[in-house]
């Protein structure tokens, strides 16, 4: 089944025959995958700043912590069980088995993975690379629930979500499961990561309901430079995300890499021009958003389409997200940081355009509409639809389940005080005035100076 895996695909694309016998470990591929893994890991802190800059100061830490916490809770869960359920060679068309649980059989040789037929790096490194995808997918959801979801409930939610909803999606697409067999292609995670996160975010926003101030007060970004920094780190990390999805430092990796430069550039340009025509001003928040949308849209197509089409895809992708975003802000839907408009809509656009612009002459594996294969578009759409259903339903049930164990939403009083103080007992920016050291400190702390009293 692994035959559908993005990795093998990348290999096939090279038309290499070498893969008759098992591939050997490659230093060059290992070097590239080491750095790619580091790059994708960096995306989650990048997301923390992208999101954190867009919220009010009193929820900045809460927003950032939702991403940082995923690095710990989702990461460890992936190592213990998530990886096995998502990408073990065995299992069903929808979920893996436990053969790789607790990193059992995940060694330093290029053996035992679902992509063995083309794996040229240690299996352990492949597991780690995939881990970073699971982490950021879970963290992406937080953009819809920041500023009101109780932190313990959030931790429980993403932890379980990562080895259920995410594992199923990964198995179906990359584990040689249902969608892979269907003939759907997803180079680096348009379906598994972005549609999945976008839809989960939409559902979570609906289940939690809006913040008390939503629609009545302007909830403005407290630090736009942080959002720009986040977008920059996301872009930087995305080179590992897409470029690394070839699992090798080869031509397909290079193609995916360069398309990951070109598409968001085009989206950025179109987004800026849309801003300019609509309001007469090019906004910075818009630029940051445009970059991310372009990155989302190229993800499923990165290794499949020509650079020229990547520019076109990036340009087209600006429109649906731009207008859904405008609509959303006027709606009653408090998907606070527009995860659905950005990742859900952007992911669907990308998934379908992959079916449009793919060319066997480029990727060596399959043709899209431009090469006369209309069918691929339908398959891609079907896959996107399936993802919407699976993710939406799974997320809904899981949130309901969690709500039985612990309340999901903070009280309006806590919201008013600010989530940083109420959920984390900290403020992002403190001056220290009026902060009195409490009693369990050395006595001197209580009476700043002998004579201070009188």
């Amino acid at each position, binding site marked *: 089944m692994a035959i559908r895996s993005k990795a093998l695909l990348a290999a096939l694309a090279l038309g290499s025959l070498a893969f008759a016998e098992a591939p050997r470990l490659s230093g060059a591929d290992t070097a590239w995958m080491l750095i790619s893994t580091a790059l994708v890991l960096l995306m989650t802190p990048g997301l923390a700043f992208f999101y954190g800059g867009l919220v009010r100061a009193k929820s900045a830490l809460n927003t950032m912590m939702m991403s940082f916490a995923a690095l710990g809770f989702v990461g460890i869960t992936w190592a213990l069980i998530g990886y096995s359920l998502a990408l073990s060679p065995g299992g069903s068309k929808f979920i893996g088995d436990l053969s790789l649980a607790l990193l059992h059989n995940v060694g330093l040789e290029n053996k035992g993975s679902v992509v063995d037929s083309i794996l040229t790096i240690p299996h352990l490194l492949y597991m780690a690379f995939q881990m970073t995808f699971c982490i950021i997918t879970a963290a992406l959801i937080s953009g819809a629930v920041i500023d009101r979801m109780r932190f313990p409930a959030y931790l429980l939610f993403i932890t379980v979500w990562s080895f259920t909803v995410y594992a199923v999606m990964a198995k179906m697409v990359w584990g040689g499961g249902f969608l892979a067999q269907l003939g759907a292609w997803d180079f680096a995670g348009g379906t598994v990561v972005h549609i999945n996160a976008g839809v989960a975010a939409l559902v979570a926003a609906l289940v939690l309901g809006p913040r008390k101030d939503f629609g009545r007060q302007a909830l403005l970004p407290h630090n736009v430079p942080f959002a720009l920094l986040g977008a920059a780190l996301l872009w930087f990390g995305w080179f590992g995300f897409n470029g690394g999805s070839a699992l090798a430092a080869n031509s397909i990796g290079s193609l995916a890499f360069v398309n990951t430069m070109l598409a968001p550039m085009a989206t950025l340009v179109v987004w800026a021009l849309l801003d300019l025509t609509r309001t007469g001003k090019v906004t910075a928040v818009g630029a940051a958003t445009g970059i991310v949308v372009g990155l989302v849209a190229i993800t499923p197509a990165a290794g499949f389409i020509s650079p020229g089409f990547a520019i076109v895809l990036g340009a087209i992708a600006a429109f649906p997200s731009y207008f859904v975003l405008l609509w959303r802000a006027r709606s009653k839907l408090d998907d606070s940081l527009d995860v659905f408009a950005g990742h859900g809509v952007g992911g669907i656009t990308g998934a379908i355009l992959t079916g449009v612009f793919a060319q066997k002459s480029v990727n060596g594996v399959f043709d899209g509409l431009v090469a006369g294969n209309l069918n691929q578009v339908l398959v891609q759409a079907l896959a996107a639809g399936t993802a919407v259903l699976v993710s939406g339903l799974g997320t809904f049930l899981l949130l309901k389940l969690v709500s039985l164990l612990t309340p999901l939403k903070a009280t309006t009083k806590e919201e008013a005080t600010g989530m940083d*103080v109420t959920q984390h*007992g900290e403020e992002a920016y403190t001056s220290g005035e*009026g902060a009195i*050291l409490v009693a369990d400190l050395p006595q001197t702390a209580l009476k700043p100076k002998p004579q201070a009293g009188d």
Partner: protein
Amino acid sequence: MKLVVAIVRPEKINEVLEALFKAEVRGLSISRVQGHGGETDEVQTYRGTTVKMELHEKVRLEIGVSDSFVGPTVRAIMAAAHTGEVGDGKIFVLPVEKVYRIRTGEEDTAAVTPVL
């Protein structure tokens, strides 16, 4: 002439502003302050350091009005800033001897009557 100084909750400031504008009070200045009163202090922890935050975020309004406007101004703030929970804030009315509008040199009442 009077100067109305009010301390209100940050989350209430936009409602207070609307109420004031409705009451035809259009000239004012606000600033962020931190206040102490009857509120219960929150505890915060930074690594090993635990602190009691004795100050809470508030917004201070400063509104210069002619005597006839004192009533409406105070009532508008009272209504819009009220939650009933400890920490709603205070209003102080101070006497003013002279007011100048820098742009025109106008004085007193003329100085605080909005330009139309």
